[in-house]
């Protein structure tokens, strides 16, 4: 039941995002250009991602390591 709810939520989210896009001009991007709005990990998080990839079975889809490069998975 929870799985169906999650799938339905994801589908609704993707559909609502796909239809919600508006053209944003350069002068309207002051909020989006804030350093903390970047769609990326913070530099200070780098070593947190490393230890998580050592201690947990999953990795990847976070612009970090997906395996290899160290004695981790």
């Amino acid at each position, binding site marked *: 039941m929870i799985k169906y709810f999650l799938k339905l939520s994801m589908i609704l989210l993707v559909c609502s*995002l796909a239809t*919600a*896009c*508006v*053209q*944003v001009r350069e002068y*309207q*991007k002051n*909020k*989006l250009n*804030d*350093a*903390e*709005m*970047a*769609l990326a990990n*913070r*530099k*200070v*998080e*780098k*070593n*947190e991602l*490393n*230890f*998580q990839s*050592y*201690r*947990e*079975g*999953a*990795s*990847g*889809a*976070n*612009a970090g390591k*997906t*395996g*290899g*490069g*160290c*004695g981790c*998975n």
Partner: protein
Amino acid sequence: MKKIFLTAAGFAMLCRLNTYAQIASAKINKKAFNIYQPISNGDSTGYQTKPLRLDEVNLVSSYYWQDGNHSAVTGGIGTEHVTDLSNGINLKFVWTGPGQHKNTLDAGLGFDNHTSASQAFINKSGASRTDGNRIYPSLDWTSENEKKGTSFGLGSYVSSEYNYNSFGADLHFSLKTANKMGEFGAKFQGYFDQVRLIYPSEFIPTSTIVTTGGTTVITTASGRTSTLSSGGGSENRKENIPFSPRHTYSGSFSYSQIINPRLQVMFLADLVKQDGYLGLPFHRVYFNTGKDTIERLPSTRFKLPVGFRANYFLGDSFIIRAYYRYYTDDWGIHSNTANLEIPIKISPFFSVAPFYRYYGQTAAKYFAPYEAHATTDAYYTSNYEYAQFNSNFFGAGIRLAPPKGVLGWQNLHELEVRYGHYQQTTGLVSNVISLSLGFK
């Protein structure tokens, strides 16, 4: 003492690099570091070429410490006490060449020093070394055509530690949509690693001894050789432990989209294939008969993680940074990761960011705890990385980025400090504190 010295030495070296921001200041009037001298300062399109200059220097240091009682070295029981001091420096060079291509060269160097209490028990007597170092340089070049919204780049990476060596290379590119609201990115990466076959002491096979002249060569069945040579009363000892390869190939894909002036999202997916020696040779497994052996895992693994990020600027003071990942692989692990961070802007240049991360995974098919594996199992591990567990990670960070520099130091344009506490349902507990300094 050594750790404090290395950190202080790295910081002092950084301070002597004399990097300068591109700001109007009477004091800052030195010529920027310059290797490449363009023939012309302009092209027919009106765009100007710019010489190579050091644009940014980033320094990240972390201290990590953990405790637990399920070490893989001792078969899923025993101390997991670990400390790790990590220091990394990144130098970012930029230049604009003919054809309006903005080029970025990112050179990095990292150095880790760790201690691991369980490592002592590779030798059953507990006499093995408990510390080690890792050094990992990297180099990445990216060329961006800002007019077309495309970029292309190459990267390389090396990591070296006593029991593990790695070489990696990647090729990456990105493409913006016509209205510049969306961007597609792809990265293809390969790691070519070597695992040193250090076995627990009780599994080092019986040696054969051959003496020729004054030299004695001892060869174990695993290929470990020791050369003992005597001459003039002195003795030389040289050990050569063989390696086994591990390869990782991955394709990483992303698509980011601006939804409105306050919201942007990103979809991520990786396809990862690994082959070779995927376990570690000093991990023990105890069968239900009480007899121990070395961890054995399949020689291939396929991983599929997919993720989603959404960042939303709420009002004028709050940012909501959300992340979700679903992961599955052919070893039987399925996991969910959810992360929420809410930076609160106390002022435009100072923010406090509490965060919480939930992680849950099912166990791999090949995992069983201490003395639970049957001798008939084809594959076996008691490494709790592959166990079923949930974890919680929470903490907070602060970020300072005043326009006149941190503490009035113009070159130090950004400072971040972050602390996190991590708890697994396996009993593993860890803490990590990190410092990031950005210089221009």
